[in-house]
């Protein structure tokens, strides 16, 4: 047991160096062989063995097994097969001067030690190739057994994502400072390129105010919503559905919510129209003097 322990320590030290999966596999095999050698030695009556001796014996065992494998493969290939059969092994053993008949007896000997199966090391997973997006399925005219399409990024595009910032505070902070920076840069630019006014006579650059410029029609800019606001309105209109519940809860103290009464009236109108068809006709033709066509002048009688 002591040598197994020492052998174990050896592999441990080796594992430190090993880094690739192939090395790992090799080391695991070596360790199993060492256990085999050690158990055979125990069976033969040794109490302890030098490490170097065990190593040598392991090396020999390994060479022997390797040779069996190599020869068996040669025999099987010689008969034009890919998978070795039992007969290939037997021939190999015979060729190597091993008496095959003794093997069943040896296997059934009473004092043999059972070696636990080596721990199944997982097949080292080959790291996935960079997958981005979903592979396209085959179009119907390509048979299913054909290889799959490669990842789209290899031949279409490579989308890149940054990890989204999920912290609300940071987000707001960022949005605020971003907007502020844009605004400041923009207004400074405008101030630099145009006429300015200043609050300080000695300094015109620190707080530059874009000069006031009279409009020809001042009420238009003042009353019409700016483009930004229009855009926002469209955006919020789509999300209005969600807010609907809020409106219902609203104590309609100031009935600024115009949609309410309008809807009511609209429904009233609908009822009316459904009640009387004639009303519908009136609705279509609004008689308002300002909508009537302008009359042609009467022809002067003088001429």
């Amino acid at each position, binding site marked *: 047991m002591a040598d197994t322990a020492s052998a174990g320590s050896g592999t441990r030290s080796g594992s430190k160096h090993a880094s690739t999966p192939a090395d790992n596999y090799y080391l695991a095999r070596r360790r199993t062989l060492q256990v085999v050698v050690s158990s055979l030695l125990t069976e033969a009556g040794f109490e302890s063995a030098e490490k170097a001796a065990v190593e040598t014996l392991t090396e020999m065992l390994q060479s022997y097994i390797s040779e069996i494998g190599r020869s068996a493969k040669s025999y099987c290939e010689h008969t034009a097969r890919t998978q070795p059969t039992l007969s290939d092994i037997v021939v190999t053993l015979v060729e190597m001067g091993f008496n095959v008949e003794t093997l069943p007896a040896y296997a059934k000997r009473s004092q043999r030690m059972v070696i636990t199966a080596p721990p199944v090391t997982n097949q080292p997973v080959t790291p996935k190739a960079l997958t981005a997006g979903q592979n396209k399925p085959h179009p119907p005219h390509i048979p299913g057994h054909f290889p799959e399409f490669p990842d789209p990024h290899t031949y279409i595009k490579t989308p890149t994502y940054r990890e989204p910032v999920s912290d*609300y*505070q940071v987000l*707001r*902070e960022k*949005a*605020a400072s971003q907007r*502020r920076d844009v*605004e*400041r840069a*923009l*207004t400074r630019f*405008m101030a630099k390129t145009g006429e300015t*006014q200043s*609050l*300080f006579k*000695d*300094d015109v650059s620190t*707080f*530059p*105010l*874009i*000069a*006031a*410029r*009279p*409009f*020809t*029609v*001042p*009420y*238009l*800019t*003042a*009353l*019409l*919503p*700016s483009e930004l*606001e229009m855009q*926002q*309105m469209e955006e*919020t209109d789509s*999300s*209005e559905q969600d*807010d609907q519940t*809020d409106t219902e809860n*609203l*104590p309609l*103290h*100031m009935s*600024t919510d*115009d949609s309410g*009464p309008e809807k009511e*009236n609209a429904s009233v109108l609908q009822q009316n129209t459904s009640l009387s068809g004639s009303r519908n006709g009136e609705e279509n033709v*609004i008689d*308002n*003097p300002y909508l009537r066509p*302008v*009359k*042609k*002048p009467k022809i002067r009688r003088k001429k």
Partner: protein
Amino acid sequence: MNRKKGDKGFESPRPYKLTHQVVCINNINFQRKSVVGYVELTIFPTVANLNRIKLNSKQCRIYRVRVNDLEAAFIYNDPTLEVCHHESKQRNLNYFSNAYAAAVSAVDPDAGNGELCIKVPSELWKHVDELKVLKVHINFSLDQPKGGLHFVVPNMEGSMAERGAHVFSCGYQNSTRFWFPCVDSHSELCTWKLEYTVDAAMVAVSNGDLVETVYTHDMRKKTFHYMLTIPTAASNISLAIGPFEILVDPYMHEVTHFCLPQLLPLLKHTTSYLHEVFEFYEEILTCRYPYSCFKTVFIDEAYVEVAAYASMSIFSTNLLHSAMIIDETPLTRRCLAQALAQQFFGCFISRMSWSDEWVLKGISGYIYGLWMKKTFGVNEYRHWIKQELDQIVAYELKTGGVLLHPIFGGGKEKDNPASHLHFSIKHPHTLSWEYYTMFQCKAHLVMRLIENRISMEFMLQVFNKLLSLASTASSQKFQSHMWSQMLVSTSGFLKSISNVSGKDIQPLIKQWVDQSGVVKFYGSFAFNRKRNVLELEIKQDYTSPGTQKYVGPLKVTVQELDGSFNHTLQIEENSLKHDIPCHSKSRRNKKKKIPLMNGEEVDMDLSAMDADSPLLWIRIDPDMSVLRKVEFEQSDFMWQYQLRYERDVVAQEEAILALEKFPTPASRLALTDILEQEQCFYRVRMLACFCLAKIANSMVSTWTGPPAMKSLFTRMFCCKTCPNIVKTNNFMNFQSYFLQKTMPVAMALLRDVHNLCPKEVLMFILDLIKYNDNRKNKFSDNYYRAELIDALANSVTPAVSVNNEVRTLDNLNPDVRLILEEITRFLNMEKLLPSYRHTITVSCLKAIRVLQKNGHVPSDPALFKSYAEYGHFIDVRIAALEAVVDYTKVDRSYEELQWLLTMVQNDPVPYIRHKILDMLTKNPPFTKNMESPLCNEALVDQLWKLMNSGTSHDWRLRCGAVDLYFTLFGLSRPSCLPLPELGLVLNLKEKKAVLNPTIIPESVANNQEPVNSTNNHGQSVGFQNTFSNSQEEEEIDMDTVHDSQAFIYHHLNMLERPSTPGKEQSSGEMNMHPVSAAPLSVFSKESNSSKHSDHHHHHHHEHKKKKKKHKHKHKHKHKHDSKEKEKDPFAFSNSPASARSIRSPSLSD
């Protein structure tokens, strides 16, 4: 005249009845701002010897007058052009006000007068004697009108329609005479035919039904034909022409809305509500809207926000708004509702005389109030009533009273019911604008008092009765004598009330309508434990100006432990103390709930109470059924209970104001609780914010915890996870929106022990600005951002200045630097993404002025002056002008004052001109008792000229100038002037001559005060008093003098005779002398006579010079004058508009 009807009927002051008038404007030139047209009046003489017809006309150039197709001579005389004569050296306001009232009287249509006097051709005299119809046809033109019609012509490329050029009628009270000759009275009703020929791309909107629109022969113009079959006064005729976009109301097809190009989406949204107002009024009045159609027109550069005319209303375009705007929506709806209320009372129903104006204003204001109650709720309504009440009370106490129904007996100065005022209240045109606003306010409050007395049901029945009488009368097409039923008078209205309700409201009318002044109560109480009686003491102050004594019932509400109890006390002459027995005998039962007035039962923590008294709180006149101010004393815990548990918003607001005086932790708690209570009315919560700030400042040394309201704001509006960041805006809940806007503004008023705004608060506000995010909001946040800037401005405290160092960037306070950074960014962003109504620019300008005033930034008006120029949005201009006015005051800048006064004379926008005077009056550069380098003779002359002749085209502006003159110099001669040369002054009403009161002190031996102080004395006591004091010594008994009659006569003429056209006149802006250009037969006569009058004036001037030398020889001189006058053909004999005929009220005698 119809005498049979007795006192109920209407007696026309005119010797004829107008039945129909045609107004035809066949050319409007936007480039030259001119109008050409004619009017034709159909009149029926009511007296046999009618030989002169007086009409009103101002500014118009009259080319030709024909009566029944015969050329008629006419004369045009407008004494209001120049109130006091050019050469007069008089500079005291008393003199001016009297002269101005006389001048307005001389052309007052309600007295049968007018500027235009037409002589009926002698060929028609026989015709007239048979009382047959006369058709008066007048051709006129109007060139660059300065009032009445306002042209807006943007200076840009394109046709007039593309530029959005438009024109509209405007003015204060009856101002129709400014744009066509008419009988400019509210009491002369007739039917109308109106025709306007305009560019084909334009629309002409006017009163009545649009009958047809016809192209002219060249197809480049079209003519709009309107018919107004409901008899209407000329004062209710209006016009708006422009390239309007037309919107037929989707709910009521007979209603049409008009707005300027590009604003249609806003118009749609703004007017989408109007049909509900219609429904409301028609329902409560149980009367259909009287006209067959209604038009709303939204125009730029409006004279007033809302102007109501027969079947149409003209609004300021700035009332339009999109669905994203919260704050403007209720304001605009209010304007719409006001305009509609005036359609019923004011347009359809007109008034008999000026002294009946209060009925119309009262009723329209009252039904508008009912609409408010229904639309915005009882809380808003009560809040509004309280606000109006506070306003009128403050105004009356300041100026000495507003009289709703002035009665003028005999026209003597002594009987003048408003001698405390610096203007006459005889005419609407002599009235200060502020007075008129307050007049309207009082009128509707008094209507509410009447309602309290007779119940709303009866009230509405009275209105219905007035309306149905009027609509019956209006349908009598050919019985024009019936039309007077459409005029309301005070007596008719009161009769109607007593018929309908059977109640006598005479005492109420006497108190509030026939008498000016409000009541001032002082209340205090003691609880008598032994008798279990509340001893209430109510005192009145009825000696201060603007107050009156109240006798009658007064309601007192006492909240006791056992419930709320109403008591009606009789306020009598000498009883001050009132014993009110208390109901709650037992000591409180801890478990018991306390019943409130509205039946609700609540748990209260009664530990704060006085253990011996069952009184929780007491309210005097809780229903505001007296026009009063109450100062009531009760202990702080009672106010706190009142704030927490009284459900009336008015009581809550009163309690908040009272708590300002009790800075204790208990008050703090009560206010904070109210702030947090969502059921509480939002205005109360807003008010509580400011009170809390004040209390926190008083408690600064003992205040614990974070700055007031900060944690509350954080809890309500900031993110749960990161409390320093405000949530993204969501203004769906308006109550919290208003609170969110107000809290930072109130917080910025907090001060620490060094009287500085705490750094924490400033950083908090800056963070609100920084993290403000409106991307997900359905509404615009422009008002919110503007208020955040206001909050920044509120946080500014005076700079610590070391020996007056110059303000530069280097010594700028770091906090101020942060503030300035924000203001700069906001102001600059406005140029790129302007906010609605530029609210943010307005707030920035105000904030900059605050920084200047506090010495952080060098004081400089240049920035404001650039924003005040024409071409900026009106709100921005006014904010900038306000800053300039303030600068003028603080820096005593003569240059800026001149700049402002120049703008008053030259600015194209009438509202701006009016507003500058108004702001100067409210924030005057100096006042009459103040030494100021600005106060000099040139300024006096300039202002005098402004009100004397420079503002004759706009009544409101002239009255504004009078107000300013009064604020700066007072009633008597300005102290900065040298002593007058003229030793004698006339008291016109008494027909006596006295020494000029300003020089009395010098000559009076027993009055040894120095000159300056006597001037002040004269001002405070008033001209009248000075006069009567000095009467004995100084009066010259003219009765004994042989020539006294002539003397007085002459001076009366000087005063009352209109400034004749063609007289010498140097002032450039007064170049409208229509008659002098009249190309007709009168012309030659007239020009002759004007030469004469020139001559006359010249002479007179020379005499004055002589007067200086021989003060005591005037007897002789006046004899001479009168002789000369007899020779003067213009003054007496030949001219049809002689001074004599103007003074007599009627031509028929």
